[in-house]
C-alpha cells in the first residue's frame, strides 16, 4: 500500500477520524451517566452488557494473538494492517470500558485515561513520530539496549545488543551515545542548517566532495560536546584504569546497507579523550568516502544519524576474525577462523594470520590449519592508541589457538549466523587469562562473483525426499537443518545438542531454555500464539506447530531440513536450500514493518497484571492493552460474583443450585445453553449441565477418590470438615449470602469462582469447536496454613500444571496458569485434571509437611490421574 506520501496523510487523517469517531461515544457515555444511576440499570441490560463484554474480551484476545502470529513471518502485511488493527483494538477497548462502567455503576471512569495513556503513544508510533523523541536517552548501556530502536543506537550497537541479550555471548561492556545525542550536538552548535546547505550545494554540483567533506568535518570537530552528553559519558566511565574502543554505529550501518570501513574507529582511548574521539567518529559520517557512498546509495536527502559505541578495551593475547562462509570455496560448507597474536588489527589489515578451516556440520571437524609466520603484532600503547611490536621468535610459527578455543568460536559463529540469517564476519579476542570475547558481528560482504549463480532452487530441492509437506501452522518462518532430537521431559533438556531440530508433542513453556540452541522446532500440537512460539520468534528459530504425526515420523538422529516458509520437511541436509536462504533471501526480521510490529506488540501483548490482589491491580497499573482487558474482565466478573448485592438489585433472575454428592454449594448463572432445557425449578444435577467446560471440570471434581480421601489425623479432621463447607459457614462471616460459589456459564464458556474453605479457585475457560478460540485461565490462591506450606503447595500445583503444558506463574501462594488454542477434547482433559486438582488441594497444605513430600505426592497424583499424554509429555 502506498503510505509514503499520500499514505502518511492517510494515517494521520485516520487519527483525526478516530477523534471524531470517539465523540459520539463520549456523548453517549455522558448521556448514560446523566440520565440514570447504576442501580437503575435494569438486569437484562447488565446481562447483555456482560455477554457483550465477554465477546469483546475474546475478540481482543484473538487480535492480540493474531498480531503475535504476524510477527512470525508467515504473513505478508503492510503498515496499513498495523494501523487498522490498532484502530480495531481501540474501538473494542472503548466498548469494554463502557460495558464495565455500565455493569459496575461507573466506578471505573479512570480507565478512559488509561486508554489514552496506552493508545496515544501506540498511534504516534504508527505515524512514525516517536522516533528520536525528547524522552529518548542520550546514552544507554549496552546491556540494556532497546533492541527495536536501531534508529536510536545505530546498526552496529543494535546487533551487539542482540548478541548480548538474545544470544548471551560475552561482549566487552560499554555504552552507546545515541543518535539523539548526535542531534543535540548539531543543535547546540547550530550545525543542522549549515550542513544541510553544504550538502545541497554539493548535490547541485556547486562544490566538490572533498571540499564539502572538509567544511562539514571541520565544523563538527570545532564544535562543543553538549554538557548533558558529557555528563552521560562521565556517568558511564566512572571506573578508573579503563581504556575504550570508540566505534561508529550509524543508522543503517550493518543492516541492508553496509558502510563497513567508511566510518572511524578509535582504539584504546583513555577516558578523558572520549569526547574528542566522539567528535572524530561523528565527523567521519561526512568523510569524502562516506559522502560518495551515500550518494551512490541515494541517501543524500535522508537525515544521517550517528550513534557512537564505547566499549572497554580487552587487552588481548590473540585476536582475529571469523568468516562463516569460506569465500575461497563457497560451496564447501565450512567456516574460516583467522587468528594472530596481540590485537586483531593485523588480521583485518590482511597481514600474516593463522587460518583454520572448520566444517559447519557437527562434529565440526577441522579441515585444515595453516600456521603463518607472524612477525609483528599490534599491542596497546601505554598512553592510549596502539603500537607495533615484534612477536617473540619462538612464538612466530606457533599456532595461535588451542582446540578448546576453536570449539567455542565455532559454536558462537554458528549461533550468530543462525540468528542473523546471513553469513557473518565476526571479530573476536582472547584475553591474557584465556577467556574469549566477541567484539563484533556483521553481515559478510560477499562479492557477487564469488558465488557462482546457483542452479535453480526448485530443481535442486526436488532431488531431496520430502518427509512432511503442507502440515501445520508457521510460528516462525525460516529454514534450519540438523539431526532430530525429541524431548520428553525436563531431564532430557540438558542433553539437547546445539543445532539440533527439536521435535515435540506439545509446545510447553518448560522447553524455553533449549529454544536458542535449536536449528528448528516442530511440534505436533500448540499454538502460533502460545508462549513457546513467542520465544521461538525472539530467537528467530524456524518453527512449525500443529504438525500431525511428526513425532512418529521424525525419530531421533534423523537428519532433516525444515523449511517453514514452504511448510516442507526434507530428508537430509539440503545444502542448496540453506545456501539460498543465507545468500539470496532477505531476513524478514530486519524489515521495517516487522520492527514496527514488534514495537507495537510491546505496548499491546505483555501481561503485567497477574495478581488481582496486588496493589498495582488498578487502572493506573495497566501498562499494556492486555493489562487493560485483564483488569476489565476481572472487575466485571467480580461484580457478578458479589451475588448478595446482585440478587438484591435484580430480584427474580434465575440462579440454579447444583445438587451433587460433592458438597460444594454451587450456584449457576446460565448465559445460554449451559443447562439442559428440560431442567425445572431451581435445582439441577450434574447430568443436566450442558456447558462443556463446567461438565468437564465437574467430572474431575466428582471422580472417584478425588473428594473423599485417605484418613487424616484426627486433630485435622474438624478443620477438614470445615474446609469442605463454603466460606459462608466459616467464623467471622455472618452475611447470609457471602461468598457463594458461582459459575457463570454458556454452552461453551465457563467462569467459575470456587471458594473451598480458605482456598480460592478461579477458572475461566472456553471450548469452541475451533481451537484458536479456546483458552483456560486458572488461578489459585490462599490456604489455611502458614506461608511456607502454602507456597510449597503453589509450587506443586505449578509442577503438575506445567506437565500439562500450562504456562504457569507463581507468586508466593498465588498460582496463575494459562493455556491457549488446544482442540476441544484436549481442553476437556485439562479441565478434568483441574477438577481433580481442586479436589486434592483441599488437603495439600496439611499433607505437604516438607519439600521432600512433593515428589511423592506428584507420583501419587500422576499414578492416579493419567496425564493427557503419558507417552511424551512426562
Amino acid at each position, binding site marked *: *500500500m502506498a503510505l*509514503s506520501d499520500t499514505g502518511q496523510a492517510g494515517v494521520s487523517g485516520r487519527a483525526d477520524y478516530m477523534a471524531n469517531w470517539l465523540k459520539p461515544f463520549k456523548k453517549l457515555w455522558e448521556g448514560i451517566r446523566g440520565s440514570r444511576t447504576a442501580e437503575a440499570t435494569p438486569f437484562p441490560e447488565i446481562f447483555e452488557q456482560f455477554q457483550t463484554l465477554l465477546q469483546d474480551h475474546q475478540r481482543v484476545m484473538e487480535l492480540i494473538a493474531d498480531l503475535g502470529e*504476524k510477527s512470525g513471518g508467515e504473513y*505478508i502485511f*503492510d503498515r496499513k494492517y498495523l494501523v487498522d488493527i490498532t484502530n480495531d483494538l481501540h474501538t473494542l477497548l472503548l466498548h469494554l470500558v463502557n460495558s464495565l462502567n455500565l455493569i459496575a455503576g461507573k466506578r471505573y471512569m479512570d480507565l478512559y485515561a488509561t486508554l489514552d495513556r496506552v493508545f496515544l503513544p501506540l498511534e504516534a508510533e504508527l505515524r512514525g513520530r516517536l522516533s528520536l523523541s525528547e524522552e529518548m536517552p542520550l546514552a544507554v548501556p549496552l546491556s540494556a539496549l532497546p533492541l527495536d530502536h536501531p534508529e536510536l543506537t545505530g546498526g552496529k550497537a543494535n546487533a551487539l545488543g542482540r548478541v548480548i541479550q538474545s544470544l548471551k555471548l560475552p561482549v566487552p561492556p560499554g555504552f552507546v551515545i545515541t543518535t539523539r545525542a548526535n542531534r543535540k550536538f548539531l543543535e547546540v552548535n547550530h550545525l543542522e542548517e549549515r550542513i544541510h546547505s553544504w550538502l545541497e550545494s554539493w548535490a547541485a554540483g556547486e562544490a566538490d566532495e572533498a571540499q564539502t567533506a572538509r567544511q562539514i568535518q571541520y565544523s563538527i570537530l570545532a564544535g562543543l560536546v553538549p554538557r548533558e552528553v558529557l555528563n552521560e559519558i562521565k556517568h558511564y566511565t566512572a571506573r578508573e584504569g579503563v581504556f575504550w574502543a570508540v566505534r561508529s554505529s550509524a543508522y543503517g550501518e550493518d543492516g541492508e546497507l553496509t558502510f563497513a570501513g567508511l566510518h572511524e574507529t578509535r582504539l584504546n582511548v583513555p577516558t578523558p579523550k572520549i569526547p574528542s574521539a566522539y567528535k572524530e567518529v561523528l565527523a567521519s559520517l561526512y568523510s569524502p568516502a562516506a559522502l560518495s557512498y551515500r550518494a551512490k546509495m541515494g541517501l543524500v536527502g535522508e537525515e544521517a544519524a550517528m550513534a557512537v559505541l564505547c566499549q572497554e578495551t580487552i587487552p588481548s593475547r590473540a585476536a582475529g576474525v571469523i568468516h562463516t562462509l569460506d569465500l575461497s570455496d563457497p560451496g564447501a560448507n565450512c567456516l574460516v577462523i583467522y587468528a594472530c597474536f596481540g590485537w586483531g588489527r593485523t588480521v583485518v589489515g590482511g597481514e600474516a594470520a593463522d587460518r583454520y578451516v572448520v566444517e559447519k556440520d557437527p562434529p565440526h571437524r577441522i579441515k585444515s590449519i595453516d600456521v603463518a609466520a607472524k612477525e609483528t603484532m599490534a599491542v596497546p600503547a601505554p598512553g592510549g592508541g596502539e603500537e607495533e611490536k615484534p612477536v617473540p621468535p619462538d612464538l612466530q610459527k606457533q599456532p595461535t589457538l588451542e582446540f578448546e578455543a576453536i570449539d567455542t568460536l565455532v559454536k558462537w559463529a554458528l549461533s550468530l549466523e543462525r540468528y542473523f540469517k546471513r553469513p557473518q564476519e565476526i571479530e573476536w579476542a582472547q584475553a591474557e587469562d584465556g577467556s574469549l570475547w566477541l567484539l563484533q558481528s556483521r553481515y559478510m560482504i560477499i562479492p557477487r562473483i564469488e558465488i557462482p549463480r546457483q542452479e535453480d532452487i526448485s530443481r535442486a530441492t526436488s532431488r531431496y525426499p520430502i518427509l512432511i509437506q503442507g502440515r501445520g501452522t508457521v510460528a516462525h518462518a525460516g529454514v534450519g537443518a540438523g539431526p532430530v532430537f525429541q524431548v520428553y521431559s525436563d531431564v532430557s533438556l540438558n542433553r539437547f545438542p546445539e543445532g539440533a531440530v527439536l521435535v515435540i508433542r506439545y509446545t510447553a513453556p518448560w522447553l524455553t531454555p533449549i529454544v536458542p540452541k535449536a536449528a528448528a522446532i516442530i511440534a505436533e500440537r500448540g499454538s502460533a500464539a502460545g508462549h513457546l512460539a513467542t520465544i521461538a520468534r525472539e530467537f528467530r528459530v524456524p518453527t512449525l506447530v500443529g504438525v500431525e504425526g511428526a513425532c512418529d515420523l521424525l525419530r531421533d538422529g534423523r537428519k532433516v531440513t525444515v523449511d517453514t516458509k514452504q511448510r516442507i520437511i526434507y530428508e537430509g541436509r539440503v545444502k542448496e536450500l540453506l545456501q539460498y536462504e543465507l545468500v539470496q533471501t532477505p531476513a524478514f526480521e530486519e524489515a*521495517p514493518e516487522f520492527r514496527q510490529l514488534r514495537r507495537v506488540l510491546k505496548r499491546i501483548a505483555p501481561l503485567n497484571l497477574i495478581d488481582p490482589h496486588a496493589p498495582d491491580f488498578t487502572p493506573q497499573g495497566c501498562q499494556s492493552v492486555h493489562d487493560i482487558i485483564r483488569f476489565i474482565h476481572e472487575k466485571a466478573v467480580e461484580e457478578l460474583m458479589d451475588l448478595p448485592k446482585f440478587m438484591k438489585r435484580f430480584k427474580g433472575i434465575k440462579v440454579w443450585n447444583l445438587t451433587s454428592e460433592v458438597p460444594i454449594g454451587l450456584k449457576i448463572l446460565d448465559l445460554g445453553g449451559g443447562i439442559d432445557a428440560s431442567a425445572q425449578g431451581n435445582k439441577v444435577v450434574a447430568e443436566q449441565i450442558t456447558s462443556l467446560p463446567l461438565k468437564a471440570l465437574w467430572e474431575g471434581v466428582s471422580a472417584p477418590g478425588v473428594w473423599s480421601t485417605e484418613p487424616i489425623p484426627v486433630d485435622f479432621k474438624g478443620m477438614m470438615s470445615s474446609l469442605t463447607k463454603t466460606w459462608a459457614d466459616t467464623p467471622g462471616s455472618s452475611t447470609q449470602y457471602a461468598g457463594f460459589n458461582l459459575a457463570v456459564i454458556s454452552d461453551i464458556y465457563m467462569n467459575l469462582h470456587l471458594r473451598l474453605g480458605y482456598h480460592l479457585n478461579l477458572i475461566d475457560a472456553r471450548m469452541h469447536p475451533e481451537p484458536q478460540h479456546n483458552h483456560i485461565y486458572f488461578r489459585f490462591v490462599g490456604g489455611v496454613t502458614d506461608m511456607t506450606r502454602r507456597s510449597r503447595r503453589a509450587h506443586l500445583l505449578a509442577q503438575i500444571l506445567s506437565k500439562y503444558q500450562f504456562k504457569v506463574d507463581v507468586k508466593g501462594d498465588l498460582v496463575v496458569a494459562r493455556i491457549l488454542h488446544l482442540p476441544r477434547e484436549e481442553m476437556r482433559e485439562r479441565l478434568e485434571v483441574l477438577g481433580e486438582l481442586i479436589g486434592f488441594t483441599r488437603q495439600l497444605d496439611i499433607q505437604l509437611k516438607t519439600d521432600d513430600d512433593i515428589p511423592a505426592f506428584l507420583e501419587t497424583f500422576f499414578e492416579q490421574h493419567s496425564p493427557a499424554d503419558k507417552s511424551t509429555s512426562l
Partner: protein
Amino acid sequence: MSSEKLKILVLDDEPIVCKRLAPALEKLGFEVDTFTQSLEALHQIQEANYDIIITDLKMKGIDGMRFLQEAKSKNPATEVIVITGFATLETAKESFQKGVFDFIAKPFKLSEIQEVVTKVAAKIRAARG
C-alpha cells in the same frame, strides 16, 4: 518440475511484499520479476510476456486496476492475481469482471498465495496441453 518455467511479475509498492514473494515463488519453480513502480512494470510488460501477474490495487501513479487492464489487453492469456489491503466487495467484483483469476486480501499467508499460484499454474499448463 515441468520443462518450461512459468514467468511471474509481482507489482506492489510496498517493497516488503516483493521481497517476501520472490523467494517464496522461486522455490516453487517460477521465474519471478518484481516491481515497486507501476510505470516500470508497465514498460516491462511491453518488453516481455508474463504468464502470471500478481498486483496490488492501490498504488501511486497508475493504479492496479488500470495496470491489469493494460496487461490483459496486451496479452489476454496472462492470468492476474490481485492482492490488496483495501478489499471491498466492489473492488472484488470489479476485479473479477476484468477477468482476474483470484483476489487475495492483505494480510495473507505465504501459503495462501502459493496455493493460488499453484492452482493458476495448473490451469495455464492444462490450457497449453
